[in-house]
C-alpha cells in the first residue's frame, strides 16, 4: 500500500515537490523512522529535514508526535511550525 506524503512551506520548497506517493520500506514504523528514512533519500531531503525536531507532522490531517505509529496512514504531511493567525 502506498502512502501519500505532502509537504508545505519551506519543507516543500527544499524537497522540490508538493507531494509524492511512496512505498514505505519495512522498519519504518513511527514518524521518527519516516523522517530518518526520508532524510537518506537525497540532498534535497537532507536539506529539508536537517533538523528533524522542528518538523511538524500530521497523519490523516491531524497533528501527531514523532513517536506516533504510522501504520494505516493514507496521508502524512510534513511542515514547519505554523505561522497563521
Amino acid at each position, binding site marked *: 500500500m502506498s502512502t501519500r506524503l505532502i509537504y508545505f512551506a519551506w519543507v516543500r520548497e527544499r524537497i522540490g515537490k508538493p507531494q509524492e506517493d511512496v512505498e514505505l520500506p519495512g522498519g519504518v514504523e513511527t514518524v521518527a523512522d519516516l523522517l530518518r528514512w526520508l532524510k537518506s533519500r537525497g540532498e534535497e531531503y537532507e536539506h529539508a529535514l536537517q533538523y528533524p525536531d522542528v518538523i511538524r507532522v500530521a497523519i490523516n490531517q491531524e497533528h501527531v508526535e514523532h513517536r506516533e505509529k504510522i501504520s494505516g496512514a493514507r496521508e502524512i504531511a510534513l511542515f514547519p511550525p505554523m*505561522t497563521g493567525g
Partner: protein
Amino acid sequence: MSAAVVPVVRIQAGDFDVAAEIASLTRGRADIGAVVTFSGLCRDEAGRLSALELEHYPGMAEAEIARIAGEAAERWPLQGLTVIHRHGKVRPGENIVLVVAASAHRQAAFEAANFLMDYLKSRAPFWKKEHHGDGSQGGWVDAKESDDKAASRWK
C-alpha cells in the same frame, strides 16, 4: 445546560466584512449580551513588506480550526462563534483572520476569542511568506516561541 453552538468556520481567499459577520451572529436574537471580535491584519513592517502570502493545508486547515472552535464552544457558554482565515496573497492593511465570539456576558466572549487566537497561531496549518517592497525574494516567517507559550496557558 443547552447544547454547545456549532461554530462557523471558513477558509477563503477573499476578504470578509467584519460588520456583516457580527450581524449574522446576532440577527433576530435577544439573548446575546456580548460580542467580542478579533481581526488580524497584515502589517508592512515599516515599509519592508509589499505582501504576505499565506500557504495552507486544504482540508486540514478547516478541520483543525473546527476542532479548536469546537473546544472553545464546549469550554465557554457561547451563543455564536465564527472563525474566518484567509489564504493567498494579502497586502498590508488587509484582513487575515477574524474571530467573532458571542455570549450572554463579556467574560466568556473575551476568553473564547483569546483562546481561539492563541490556538490558531500554533495549531492551524498556515504558513506566511514575506514579499518585499523592493521586489526581492522574502523568506518564510519564523514561528514565535511566545505563541506556543500563549497556547499552553489554556491547558
